[in-house]
Each structure stands twice: as C-alpha cells, then as structure tokens.
C-alpha cells in the first residue's frame, strides 16, 4: 500500500507517528534567534531571563511550535498542510525534550479536497503539556 492509500484509510481516533525531539540546547536557541528574528534576551541570557521573573533561560514559544510542526512534516509533505495552530500552555528550558503526537479528529471534503483534521500535542520529558495544537491536512 502506498503512503497515500494508507492515509485514505485514516479514521477518527487514529494516531499519527510520534516524534521525540533532541534536547533543546543553548546553541539551538542562539541559532533560532538569528534565523527567526526573535532576539528577546530571555532566550539567550540567564541574567535577562531572571530579571524578567523567569527561573532561567526559556526556549522561544515559536521554536516549540516549529518543533510541533515536525510531527506533520515527518508524516506528510508540507504542501499537504492547510491549517496549523497551537496554544502555548507551558514553557520549555534547555535540556528539555518534546514528545510530539497527533490524533485524527475528523474527515471532511472541501473544495474538492479530502481533508483530515488532527489534534496535536507536545509534551515535555515529564509528560507535562507544552502545546495543544490542531491541524488540517489535504489527502491527494
């Protein structure tokens, strides 16, 4: 069965392949700051983070969301993704890893496309929810 055929048999409640990210590193935060244009010092400088009332340097929320997107692009081509959203629930810190998972919540047809909606979740290594997300992908 091809990947596309396998996708067409998806049913509500089915899980998509889980991904576990590599631990967040300070070097990664510096590279994400440069590439994303978010230069807020709370992601780069311990003193700045603490003076902002944080326990220490935190990762960019949009880095966590980008990581959550890997559970989609690890599964279908990016061009199949129609919608992607996330609610920022908790912070992440250097050393944290994220477990990314997704579950099918619905199937529908719209504008000639066969659409699959998903609930997504990113949890840290302690099982705490970091992001609640949702996505819609088109099968073709």
């Amino acid at each position, binding site marked *: 069965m091809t990947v596309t055929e396998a996708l067409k048999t998806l049913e509500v409640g089915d899980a998509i392949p889980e991904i576990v*990210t*590599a631990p967040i590193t300070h070097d*990664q935060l510096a*590279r*994400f700051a*440069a*590439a*994303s*244009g*978010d230069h807020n010092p709370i992601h780069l400088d311990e003193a700045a983070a603490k003076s*902002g009332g944080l326990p220490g340097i935190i990762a960019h*929320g*949009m*880095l966590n*969301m*980008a*990581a959550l*997107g*890997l559970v*989609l*692009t690890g599964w279908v*081509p*990016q*061009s199949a*993704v*129609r*919608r*992607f*959203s*996330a*609610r*920022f629930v908790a912070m992440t810190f250097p050393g944290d890893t994220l477990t990314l998972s997704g579950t099918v919540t619905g199937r529908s047809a719209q504008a000639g496309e066969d659409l699959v909606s998903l609930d997504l979740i990113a949890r840290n290594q302690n099982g705490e929810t970091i992001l609640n997300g949702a996505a819609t992908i088109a099968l073709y």
Partner: protein
Amino acid sequence: MDLAAYVGKQYPPFSVAVDAARIGAFAEAIGDTDPVYRDEAAAKAAGYDGIPAPLTFPFTIALDAGQSFNVLEDMGIDKRSSVHGEQGFVYHRPIYGGDTISGTQKIIDIFEKKGGALIFILTEIDLINQHGDAVCELTSTIVVRRG
C-alpha cells in the same frame, strides 16, 4: 483607554524579502532535516517551485516587518505584561525563497476574561506574494495581564 475602539484597526501595509539561505538556517535551528529547505533541486524534485518556507516561517516574516506585538505599543500596553497565547496559520500557497511577501495586520477582536484581569487581543495578518496570490493568514492571540 477604550480598547474596544481598536477592534477593526488596520495597520500600514508592509513588504519583506524572503531569503532562501535563511530558510535553510531556520530549518536547521528547528531540527527539520528535509533537503527541500536547503537544496533547490531537491525542492523541485518534491514538486515545489523553489525552496519552501517552513510551516511557522510566516511568523518570522511578521517579525521582520515589525508586526509582532506592535499592537501593544500602539495601545500603550507594556509588552512585559503580555504573553503569546495562541498562534494559527492558514496556508493557501507555498512561500518560496526569493519571494517578496507583503501584508497587512488588523485587530479582529479584543475581549476580557477573569473579570477584566486578562485582556485577549486577536490579530490577523494576510500575506500575499509578488504575484498577488494569497499565501498565508496568521492569527495571533496576545494575552495581557492587567494589574
């Protein structure tokens, strides 16, 4: 401060050039190893017209354009009292390295929760490419602690 008066406010249009090398650096930083973000030939073999911007890259376009949290400054709200509550993307067409993306931001809703202790500000940015095609809509929810 009458925040309700800001609902519907539209900010001036902006335009941002998307650099293909930066897309590669972005993919590297987020841990996406797919060659389509780094190599034009790989991208074309995968059916793209160029090097595609990753799913959350449109937020970086908004950042580059000074369109992230600028509404707070406009409303006289201290950015430090706010957090990014939610982010959404609707995708119409890929954004490619080399594109010039333009857009406008507007405030679509403002409401309070917890007896006014929290203010929720919802903004939308519509992005179009240099051909005039809609590429992406971003919706952001900013949560402000009033106190």
